[in-house]
């Protein structure tokens, strides 16, 4: 993206549950090295982790691009999963379609998307059924 001071790319593996969260951890560490404030890092880490996990649980993985811009961090999470049928409903706290095997791992509170909304400064969801979902979030510096 134009004006980006640094761009980071991550492939999110569709199958390897144990690695889910690694992209978010890496971004957290990089922002720490860059001297970004702990409050901003926390917002980015929470928002991105929830998005990353959703790509693994609800889609078949995908690609994350993080742009560090002069005034904000911009995250684009793009998957080629099933898409979200009713975004408004999906955004509601407590709404989850996570299956039992996923719930037994501690997911499925239906709080991921609400967390993303709460901890980002802007959030946009572009989704097409059967094609995929792209979530774009920014966090101001």
């Amino acid at each position, binding site marked *: 993206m134009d004006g980006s001071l640094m761009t980071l790319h991550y492939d999110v593996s569709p199958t390897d549950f*144990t690695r889910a969260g690694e992209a978010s951890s890496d971004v957290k560490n990089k922002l720490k090295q860059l001297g970004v404030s702990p409050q901003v890092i926390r917002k980015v880490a929470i928002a991105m982790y929830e998005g990353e996990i959703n790509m693994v649980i609800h889609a078949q993985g995908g690609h994350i691009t993080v742009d560090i811009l002069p005034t904000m961090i911009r995250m684009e999470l793009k998957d080629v999963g099933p898409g979200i049928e009713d975004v408004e409903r999906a955004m509601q706290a407590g709404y989850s379609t996570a299956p039992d095997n996923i719930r037994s791992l501690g997911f499925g509170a239906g*709080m991921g998307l609400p967390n993303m909304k709460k901890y980002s400064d802007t959030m946009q969801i572009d989704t097409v059924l059967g094609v995929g979902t792209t979530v774009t979030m920014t966090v101001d510096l």
Partner: protein
Amino acid sequence: MTLNQLIRSDIFTLRNAGDDTERAITVPFCCDLLSIAMSRAPSGCAWVTVMANMNTLAVASLSDAACVILAEGTCFDDAALAKAKTQGIAVFETGLPVFEAALKVHDLMGQTGQA
């Protein structure tokens, strides 16, 4: 109270001491649903949970918990423990129920001063 003081108290079984044993424990925190823990766990908390898997570690690290206390006799498998070691996350285990484990942390904080 520092992490070191919790380690030395021997209340829980230490599985990994983590990177920074001098860091302060701010408050005990109990939750098993990861996306709630993610947004609610206070920085520096002693996170008590029965959810023992890799994702617990990711949430602990991203929310900046001081340590993870696995309650009710739950434990990490070897792979998760190895990850806790590489990521420098402090991990304890205990057979105590969640509330009692958190209460022990709370009581010890009262005795040692709130660091």
